[in-house]
């Protein structure tokens, strides 16, 4: 094989849809944990924490943030096990649930939605840098510099993404260690800047909903949607892990503990800001500057700012991989460059940042049914066995061709879950509770439960013959 062909294959293995063999795996538990945490510790965690802090008591906020995330992350990460075993990502498996063309459509739609997070990320980077310069005595005009610095963040993230997993691994080894340290210090400083008894005594804002349960579940809606936001991205990196155990625990602790910890830190800072200044603040840089004084604030601002660049890089890699699994013929580099222009445009537009709550719920309504169906398909319907030859469309293996590349049953389950939840449980666009079911499952949670239930129900009807045609084609298990 010529050298350039070998290089191309290597690139397709680590940045493409070719299955990764055990001998090629690069990531230990620590590598995967740090890389995934680097992805998870984005400054939007602080935004999420500040949003929840307003409506709950301190103890309820703590439980709401950690417990809803832990429940859903523990469940949605179960398919990490197949990602590690076969060296493939979620979207390759989903070819057997949605069909190859169904995956192409949803991988693209979801990645386009996911990139909205990176517009938030780059805008927060811009705010951080503007605050940083202000702290250094150099005021910058936000109207001019916010879009410029935001796009600058996107470009730097693109350079990291172009470097692939090795560059991402080393970037995050440094960044995540520094940021974990900053996060812990920030929480400690907030508690010392404002006495814990005062933070604990803050009365929740009751304007959101008339009952305590309503406020608790509306806050939970945000946290469930937050947990779901990782789902379609979570199962890309584990294919690089060396054991199922390291893959599962590195991924679930990063998204289930580290990310919520930073949401919690955002909540604590927002409460501390309320005690100190009388208003809730969601910009971490403003909170740090107000609560912790100029010296530490400058250092923290710098680290928070660079965290956003690491997030951009990892996010660009992961989401371009998702699109590539649906559209394998497009080169990874081209996708990363296109993503750069798209995220830059979203950054300048600013809609996502201004409609953060609506945005995460709407994205979760597409991701929820996919989570439910994936878990049910993996554990119950296909019983952890997949026809790898069919999923890669090897000649003579067509178990997942379905109807011209669309699995009508899977797609119908997704559409029905989306519509039923919006009409009868919770409307994410208008933020309206449609029934009491919401107070048990939340809207996003219902999409996952109902999507999984419908898929299971279909699998015990005559539709089973349409859904599962691979049982005679399980040559690699």
């Amino acid at each position, binding site marked *: 094989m010529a050298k350039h*062909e070998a290089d*191309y*294959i290597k690139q*397709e*293995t680590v940045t*493409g*849809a*070719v*299955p990764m*063999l*055990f001998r090629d*795996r690069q990531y230990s538990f620590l590598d995967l944990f740090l890389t995934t945490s680097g992805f998870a510790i984005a400054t939007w965690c602080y935004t999420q924490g500040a949003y929840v802090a307003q409506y709950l*008591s301190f*103890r*309820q906020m703590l*439980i*709401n943030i*950690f*417990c*809803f995330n*832990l*429940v859903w992350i*523990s*469940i949605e990460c*179960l398919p990490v*096990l197949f990602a*590690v*075993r*076969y060296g493939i990502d979620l979207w390759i498996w989903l070819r057997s649930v949605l069909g190859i063309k169904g995956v192409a459509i949803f991988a693209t739609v979801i990645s386009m939605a996911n990139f909205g997070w990176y517009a938030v990320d780059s805008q927060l980077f811009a705010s951080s840098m503007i605050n940083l310069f202000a702290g250094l005595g150099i005021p910058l005009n936000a109207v001019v510099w916010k879009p410029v610095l935001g796009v600058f963040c996107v470009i730097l993230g693109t350079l990291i993404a172009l470097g692939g997993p090795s560059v991402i691994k080393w970037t995050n080894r440094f960044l995540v260690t520094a940021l974990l340290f900053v996060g812990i210090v920030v929480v400690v400083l907030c508690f010392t800047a404002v006495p814990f008894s005062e933070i604990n005594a803050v009365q929740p804002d009751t304007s959101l909903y008339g009952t*305590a*349960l309503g406020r*608790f*579940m509306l806050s*939970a809606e945000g946290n469930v949607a937050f947990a779901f936001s990782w789902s379609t991205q979570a199962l890309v990196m584990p294919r690089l*892990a*060396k*054991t*199922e*155990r390291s*893959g*599962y*625990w590195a991924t679930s602790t990063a998204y*289930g503990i580290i990310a919520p910890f930073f949401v919690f830190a955002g909540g604590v800072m927002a409460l501390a800001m309320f005690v100190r200044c009388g208003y809730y603040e969601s910009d971490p840089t403003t909170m740090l500057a107000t609560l912790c004084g100029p010296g530490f604030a400058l250092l923290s601002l710098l680290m928070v700012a660079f965290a956003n660049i690491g997030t951009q890089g990892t996010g660009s890699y992961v989401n371009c991989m998702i699109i590539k699994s649906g559209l*394998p*013929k497009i080169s990874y580099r081209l996708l990363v460059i296109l993503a750069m222009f798209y995220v830059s445009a979203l950054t300048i537009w600013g809609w996502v940042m201004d409609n953060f709550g609506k945005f995460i719920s709407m994205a979760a309504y597409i991701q929820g049914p996919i989570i439910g169906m994936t878990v049910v398909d993996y554990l119950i319907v296909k019983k952890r066995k997949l026809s*790898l*030859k069919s999923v*890669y469309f*090897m000649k003579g293996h067509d178990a997942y061709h379905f109807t011209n590349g669309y699995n009508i049953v899977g797609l119908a389950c997704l559409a029905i879950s989306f519509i039923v939840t919006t009409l009868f449980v919770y409307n994410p666009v208008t933020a309206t509770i449609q029934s009491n079911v919401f*107070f048990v499952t939340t809207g996003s949670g219902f999409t996952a439960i109902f999507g999984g239930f419908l898929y299971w129900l279909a699998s015990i009807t005559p539709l089973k013959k349409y859904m599962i045609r691979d049982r005679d084609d399980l*040559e*690699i298990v």
Partner: protein
Amino acid sequence: MKNTSEIEELIYKETESRLNEMQDPSYQYPKRIGKGDIIAIVTVVASSLTLILLCMVGVIK
């Protein structure tokens, strides 16, 4: 620069070769998770759900 069909052919052959390797009985798969992991996952989910329930019914305010 190779054209699209040549690249597709290259990827197809590489995928086929890798799948054949995985099909070989001597291929080493990553180590599976154990019972301890499953117990830990169930414990995490159950204890989280308990705390959520206590908040929902107003025991934890």
